[in-house]
């Protein structure tokens, strides 16, 4: 098995990194290209950029951000938000991203998962699921659907997704730990890796998540102290989780 992955997530709107608490109350935390380079140098295994505005104007801004990030980053990165067609995915991947993340667009058009996977391979398609009370939510976690989380995870996997990015809406931004039961349940019904998201507040929380799944998404915990990433890695390793060998620059 590959080593556990620590993945800082940068929520981007109009070319700036923002992070909300339970998806509301956004505040500005920085420049995406600068933060990406900083996290890469600090030992991030991978990065995720979620374009949370995804308006037409914002999409053009995002494409330029992806280009700039690709030129400075020597670790893989995923871009989500506003991917509604194979053309959107192509634009992002050809701008230098390794993978795209689909959320509501995949729910609305499940065949999109397979269409992108056919062109770029399953490893290029992440399906993001915002989960709460057993069902999938849309619109940044605000609207509950009737789709059961486990059923959707299974279908996404069968349709060719290469990874699930699983966010617990209740835990997101709270920094009180991941929803381990949810993570375990989803991982149990799919044969692809699962990234746990929502709730990282300490190294212990991340280590707990990495004991039950393949990767952990972190946000506020690093954005509040961007220079603390190497220290966080060491703490997680001290708790018995093997991360990739990494030398601080």
């Amino acid at each position: 098995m590959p080593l556990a992955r620590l993945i800082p997530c940068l929520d981007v709107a109009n070319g700036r990194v923002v992070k909300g608490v339970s998806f509301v109350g956004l505040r500005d935390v920085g420049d995406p290209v600068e933060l990406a380079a900083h996290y890469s140098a600090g030992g991030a295994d991978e990065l995720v950029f979620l374009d949370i505005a995804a308006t037409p104007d914002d999409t053009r801004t995002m494409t330029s951000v992806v280009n700039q990030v690709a030129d400075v980053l020597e670790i893989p990165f995923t871009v989500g938000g506003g991917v509604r067609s194979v053309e959107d995915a192509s634009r992002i991947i050809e701008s230098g991203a390794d993978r795209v993340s689909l959320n509501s667009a995949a729910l609305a058009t499940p065949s999109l998962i397979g269409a992108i996977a056919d062109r770029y391979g399953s490893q290029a398609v992440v399906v993001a699921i915002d989960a709460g009370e057993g069902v999938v939510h849309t619109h940044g976690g605000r609207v509950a659907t009737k789709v059961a989380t486990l059923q959707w995870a299974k279908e996404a996997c069968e349709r060719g997704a290469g990874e699930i990015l699983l966010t617990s809406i209740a835990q997101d931004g709270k920094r009180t730990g991941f929803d381990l039961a949810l993570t375990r349940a989803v991982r149990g019904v799919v044969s692809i890796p699962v990234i746990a998201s929502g709730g990282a507040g300490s190294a212990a929380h991340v280590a707990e998540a990495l004991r039950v799944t393949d990767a952990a998404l972190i946000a506020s915990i690093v954005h509040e102290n961007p220079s603390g990433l190497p220290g966080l890695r060491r703490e997680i390793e001290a708790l018995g989780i093997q991360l990739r060998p990494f030398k601080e620059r």
Partner: protein
Amino acid sequence: MSDVVVVDYGAGNTRSVRAAMTHLGLTSEVTSEPDAIAGAPFVVLPGVGSARSAMEHLVATGADQALHRRFQDGGAILGICLGMQLALETSEEDGGVACLGLLEGSVVRLHADRVPRLGWALVEPWGEAFYFAHSYVGVSPLSVATSDGLTVAIESGSFLGVQFHPEKSGDAGLKFLERCLSLA
């Protein structure tokens, strides 16, 4: 002429490979033009996309013959991920695809705990971790490195293929690329 020619096969992310080359102080271009491929100081066959569409593109542009010619003449080629797999004889991907056949071996569906196999993993005997993202894997007598027991590097003559993405493997990846290029 550029220091490095990155072979274009119509899909995927060639930007990262070029960014890594720029980082190492090298010029690069992305092309499927046969003469450029045959004559370049160093060629990278990169790796994102599907085996069938990649092979169709290589055949349609004549890049396949250029790669054969280059290999026979001893010109250095680095295959990355799908680019390594394409150098073997056949792939199980897309219902079975005839590949370039530069090297003996075939490509089979990965049987692992989780597929795709995503993330950083140690490569032995090199003792470094590199980034992987694959659902298929090469089986070849020309294996020179393994990871979790899988063949992840094959070498013969002037061809070196790796299953991982050195251009996405941080400092370890850049050092690897630097070694490859200085040996060329």
